[in-house]
């Protein structure tokens, strides 16, 4: 496809959008992994939130 004399600007605009959106998706994904690991580590140590403790006590 011939994008004409300003093809470089068109490609650069799409590349810029792709890079920014890609970085955003990557950031959200990396953050999710980090939070999941931290939460699993705390739960592994037996740390519970007050609300979950109350629920467990209520069930007894």
């Amino acid at each position, binding site marked *: 496809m011939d*994008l004409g004399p300003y093809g470089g*600007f068109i490609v650069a605009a799409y590349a810029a959008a792709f890079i920014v959106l890609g970085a955003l998706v990557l950031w959200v994904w990396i953050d999710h992994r980090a939070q999941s690991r931290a939460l699993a580590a705390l739960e592994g140590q037996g740390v519970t*939130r007050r609300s979950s403790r109350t629920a467990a006590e209520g069930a007894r």
Partner: protein
Amino acid sequence: MALIDLANPHRFLALARWLVPIFAVLAAALLAAGLALGFRAPADYQQGETVRIMYVHVPAAWLALGIYMLMTIAALGTLVWRHPLADVAAKAAAPIGAAFCLICLLTGALWGRPMWGAYWVWDARLTSMLVLLLIYLGIIALWRAIEEPGQAGRAVAILTLVGVINIPIVKFSVDWWNTLHQPASVFRLDGPTIHPALLTPLLVSALGFAALFVALHLAAMRNEIMRRRIRTMRILAAAAEAR
């Protein structure tokens, strides 16, 4: 399910678990279709092939403004209704809004150079959009400056409500002042002035950007809820150790 049911973070997480992949797939499909339609659409009679930049520039601009309005509603949710997820929604939306604003400014500069002969001019529309990016960055900085989430949420909500004054300035800058930037051509009282051959790819692309925003926003909200749970658990663990 009523909106109030989502005030329970546990229910929200369960809903987000299946909504995030649905919107991610929808976004990928719509963006691919928008890209294909955009590159098949005819060139503009004045702007030539560079009009294709519109298919990323305009949706990014719409979302940058729309996300700020969502943050304004969330700010009201924090200050007036005290909805537990309002500040979570506002915090998760800010970096995404900033990213769309950045895309709008970058693609606008790359469109401006061949059309206007300059990457940047201190035109009212461009300047107010830059101010919007600075407001987004200020909001992100304020979130990071205050450690306690509830306190940070209230401070950010006030800043967000002050910053919303810039949104009508961005929207109507092209009507209120003489600008190099063209006036509105889609959202007009007398209907769009763009030919359907160019309007259809634009709307498909905009739907793709919107679906991507929903997927990213729900995922970022889920991350923020998890971050707050971790914070609470660490405080409780530290308190238990101190006893």
